[in-house]
């Protein structure tokens, strides 16, 4: 009687869940910590270093958490694009006929992939970016200035006039300024995830039968044209599912921001938790946010996956 078994198992499972939840509620009540969300409306009374939406210390906690979420999304989105470009380039480079390029790609993957991300972030921030000079001594390229206080980029100013960074009273000003914390986090996330993406891309390309290369070459296509028109479209079927999990990792790894002083969702949550003491509520919000972000990434990638699969006609 399989249905009896199923019913018993189902009931037992419900019982266990009820017991665990009951236990939790009882312990929380004993500690005087029942779930409450009223604190979300109270003034946060702390400041944040950077925000894409207006924020000051008199605004409520929910607004502060939103600032953190927006900052997280910003680094995740730019990071995804960057890691994809870098990873694809490196993955393709490992099939290059140029031996130097090929070896460079291998060294990059092996070095970056085998060092913990947190260490890399601390390295980028404390060793590389904080060692940069400031003011007039800052590194300058056309349209780009890199200094200890941030990355200054040329961008469209008012209207559609292109405007580069300029030095005003010893301080750089530019239409687009990225804080050094954001830049360090982004650099770390892109190089780290890029190495994994490179391997996914390499695996995808390697999965395309050699005959396809030979067929493309016999048609008179160059290496780059064969790659673009013949090999990559077939490799994508293998690449996309692998990319999905790398993207999800990048989104989760962005929460290491707090180590390099970037105000992301986790950083704001930590401050909020310390000021309100509402550990359970704050963590529920955190868990929910990351879960939703990851599910969204998965949904988009599954859509892409459907597009690149072989369609039988």
């Amino acid at each position, binding site marked *: 009687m*399989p249905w009896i*078994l199923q019913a018993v*198992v189902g009931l*037992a499972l419900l*019982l*266990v869940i009820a*017991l*665990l939840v009951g*236990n939790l509620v009882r*312990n929380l009540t*004993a*500690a*005087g*910590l029942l779930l409450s969300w009223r604190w979300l409306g109270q003034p946060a*009374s*702390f*400041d*944040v*270093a*950077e925000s894409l939406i207006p924020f000051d*210390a*008199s605004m409520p906690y929910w607004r502060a958490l939103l600032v953190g979420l927006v900052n997280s999304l910003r680094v995740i989105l730019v990071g995804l694009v960057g890691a994809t470009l870098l990873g694809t380039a490196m993955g393709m480079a490992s099939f290059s006929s140029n031996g130097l390029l090929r070896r460079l790609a291998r060294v990059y993957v092996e070095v970056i992939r085998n060092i913990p991300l947190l260490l890399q972030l*601390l390295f980028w921030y*404390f060793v590389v970016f*904080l*060692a940069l000079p*400031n003011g007039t001594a800052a590194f300058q390229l056309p349209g780009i200035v890199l200094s*200890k*206080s941030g990355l200054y980029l040329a961008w469209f100013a008012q209207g559609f006039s292109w405007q580069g960074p300029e030095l005003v009273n010893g301080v750089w000003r530019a239409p687009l300024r990225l804080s*050094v*914390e954001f830049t360090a986090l982004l650099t770390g996330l892109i190089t780290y995830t890029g190495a994994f993406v490179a391997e996914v891309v390499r695996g995808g390309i390697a999965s395309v039968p050699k005959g396809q290369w030979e067929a493309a070459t016999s048609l008179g296509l160059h290496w780059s044209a064969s790659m673009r028109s013949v090999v990559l479209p077939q490799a994508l079927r293998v690449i996309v599912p692998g990319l999905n999990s790398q993207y999800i990792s990048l989104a989760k790894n962005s929460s290491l921001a*707090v*180590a*390099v*002083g970037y*105000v992301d969702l986790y*950083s704001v949550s*930590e*401050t909020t*938790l*310390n*000021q*309100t*003491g509402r*550990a359970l509520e704050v963590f529920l919000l955190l868990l929910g946010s990351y879960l939703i972000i990851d599910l969204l990434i998965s949904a988009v990638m599954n859509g892409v996956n459907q597009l690149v699969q072989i369609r039988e006609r």
Partner: protein
Amino acid sequence: MQPSPRWLLALPLLLAFALGGCADDSGSGGGVQSVKLSTIRGRDKLVCGVDGKLPGFSFLGPDGTYSGLDADTCRAVAAAVLGDPSKVEYRDLNSSERFAALASGEVDMLARNTTMTLSRDSAGGNGISFGPTTFYDGQGVMVPVASGARTLKDLDGKPICVESGTTTELNLADRMREQGITYTPLKFQTGDQTYAAYLGGRCVAVTSDRSQLAAKRSSFPKPDEHILLPEVMSKEPLTPASVNGDPAWADALRWTVFALFQAEELGITKANVAAKVAEAKANTNLADLRRFLGVEGDFGKQLGLPADFVPKTIAAVGNYGEIFERNVGAGSPLKLERAENRLWTQGGLIYSPPFR
């Protein structure tokens, strides 16, 4: 025939866990008994949450031992409860971890530069039980001498480094808002990262409790190149703490710290405590001293501690004045003024309610 569902075997295990969890804490009924005190006695070790990286307060030295005012507070409590100051297991906690570690029972107490505040104390907030304040401090700001900044106003528009999850973060926001100074707070999770960013020149100032700034400065490569601004931005009563819900344990902690204050007031030191006990035993007229040292009465028993917990504690770590001088005062590299941390009899705030 349905294949046997192997994972069903795990169900009784799961049930046992959940039920076991219930049975486990149903034993924690209130009353005079203290679960925490018996737990500490049972494992014969006090687990004390400290910072661990703060010279003068709690600092893990190269020889593997902890030193400092906070570390000595842990020792004093271990001496009172277990009769041995060495029975302490220190747990380094950063400012974000400390309350969770206390609430979950991972540590028995905190002696970790924690400011007593209403929201931390109240049951609706962090739900912590604070003992007596062991160090009265105030928030300050440190800048490099070379920056030329001499008051808060000079920091307008500048980045300031701060450790996240501290009262410091809020005070900074409040004071700057009052004075209409704009600034960028750069928050880091640990003190190490905060001071590394400051020394790396990312921010023009770093803010924390003044004692902590002085302590950290003493470990800088060139301490003379940094100064504390004159402004004191807040009151920071640094206070050891235990978790709410075990009043007997909180009392034991509270009166052990008071004993350190009282011993200084009575002139009882690490060196003369044995002689004082002998004197109290010989002279029945010294009622106050006899009660304090456990020769007469049952103060220890009332607290769930041994009768002689006071002399044991003083013999182990000395009185409050000795602890202060040794770790942060004239006898230490920090050389902090006693200031408001003097005894009430000398115009300070250190005061023990009567032992009677």
